[in-house]
């Protein structure tokens, strides 16, 4: 039994992605990421001296500021800041610049569903633009569960409201290996797998959750390919101009 989505997508189809980097002049790194109509702007100010009071001074510290479109900053925004901060801490190399604070500022431009994954992707692109050392990228996707047990990827706002449960999942990006398939376990450090961050809303059974994870993991391949293509293209453009 197939699901009919309002905009005619299949359950496994994502909305059109768009990413542009280096759009602001004062911040050290900036990026805007849009999935369909959801658009988020991220800016990074590179390592500043000193860490906050309760932070470990032997490691680099990250500070996230989330700015909603209208209204005061409340608990929802604070929760998003905390999730984003922990996600960024796990993907960045913290030992390179100890005793520094890097600020990431997120501005919501338009919210049409799947806002937190969009913000995580924008923050990663902005960190790459600023040149902050990272182990790998974090690729975020929203999977939701329809009433009949089907998993639907990248819902918009109306679909999110109708669904019984949904989950925001963040995975490390898939690597592009030059070596043949058999030698993926070879020398060097092991490649990370698994979920970096998972935030769920609503009630779902264990099997349904694992189905969501499986579908979300399969989506990271196409998102990673988009990231890679976008970065390589902008590098080619800047080398032509320079």
């Amino acid at each position, binding site marked *: 039994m197939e699901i009919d989505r*309002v*905009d*005619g*997508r*299949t359950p*496994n*189809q*994502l*909305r*059109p*992605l768009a990413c542009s980097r280096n759009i*602001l*002049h*004062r*911040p050290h790194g*900036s990026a805007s990421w849009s999935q*369909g*109509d959801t*658009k988020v*702007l991220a*800016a990074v*100010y590179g390592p*500043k*001296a*000193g*860490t906050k009071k309760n932070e470990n001074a032997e490691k680099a510290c990250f500070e996230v*500021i989330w*700015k909603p*479109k*209208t209204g005061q900053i409340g608990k929802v925004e604070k929760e998003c800041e905390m999730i984003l901060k922990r996600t960024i801490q796990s993907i960045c190399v913290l030992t390179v610049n100890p005793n520094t*604070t890097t*600020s990431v*500022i997120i*501005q919501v*431009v*338009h919210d*049409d569903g799947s806002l937190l994954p969009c913000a995580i992707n924008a923050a990663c692109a902005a960190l790459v633009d600023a040149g902050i050392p990272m182990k790998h990228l974090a690729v975020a996707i929203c999977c939701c569960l329809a009433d009949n047990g089907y998993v639907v*990827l*990248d819902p918009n706002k109306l679909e999110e409201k109708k669904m019984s449960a949904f989950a925001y999942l963040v995975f490390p990006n898939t690597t592009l290996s030059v070596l043949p398939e058999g030698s993926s376990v070879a020398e060097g450090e092991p490649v990370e797998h698994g979920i970096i961050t998972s935030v769920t809303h609503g009630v779902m059974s264990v099997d349904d959750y694992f189905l969501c994870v*499986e*579908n979300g993991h*399969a*989506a990271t*391949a*196409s*998102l990673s*390919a*988009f990231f890679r293509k976008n970065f390589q293209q902008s590098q080619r453009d800047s080398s032509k101009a320079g």
Partner: protein
Amino acid sequence: MEGRFANLWRLTVNESKFVESALQSELRVDGRGLYDYRKLTIKFGKEYGSSEVQLGQTHVMGFVTAQLVQPYKDRPNEGSFSIFTEYSPMADPSFEPGHPGESAVELGRIIDRALRESRAVDTESLCVLAGKLVWSVRIDLHILDNGGNLVDAANIAALAALMTYRRPDCTVGGESSQEVIIHPPEEREPLPLIIHHLPIAFTFGFFNKGSILVMDPTYVEEAVMCGRMTVTVNANGDICAIQKPGEEGVNQSVVLHCLRLASSRAAATTKIIREAVEAYNRERSSQKVKRHHTLAKSEVSGPIVVVRKRQQQKKSSGQEKAAEIHFWLWLWWLIVTFWR
């Protein structure tokens, strides 16, 4: 906390001397003339009432929303509007998150005064039920990139957002005509706000004890200048507001010269804003026509994800095992039967 102060951007003595001595010969660091403005681009977002303005490197976004509230006691027939300015830490490393600083409050007050006192936005048309319910319009200005001259850019963003905002249509009905029904945009077309005129702000920077005058200063020039003044005029030649917050004293003739410069530019800037708004309205109405034809199915072309099905394999292996057991049982029965 001392670590924070170590990170504030400060202009070096060499840079400030360079800017000042260049201005002595009427040269600006970015090559503009003394009274030239940077390039102005106005873009609009998906929703009604969202605008994005770029003035050179300065980047400002404006959002307009409205809700029904009780009116003020002394003005029962008029709606209200309020301006909220957010100096985002994105714009400048010295902007702190949390409550707005002095310059954010000043910026909000300049724009608010120009719109309110000159009655640019018609508040009487925002009244729904006299004394009970009126529309309260809220304008949020987000400063994204501080390249200098935030007041002018924020003012244009607020005007552009107000001109493209549409509020929901509502009718008064019910038993005693005290109930208000708000119609969603699918039922009835939302209505635009009534704006009588456009007050445009022009900022001037003074250098060298008030003898050199510059329009649209960049953030480097703002750090060097010794005084500033903002003049808000409209295309009809009316002065809506003047703001000169202390600092260096300036001769009266210079102030009059500023007013003349501002009024001569007001018509051109008004035209740019109106043209951008009209182009946006035309595009919006043509999109609506397309939607009627194609039954609301947009041409979405996102990536399709392939998920390999692992569950079916598990089921088939179970069935295979059962079939195998059946076969051996049947063979054994066959042997036993034919053995006799």
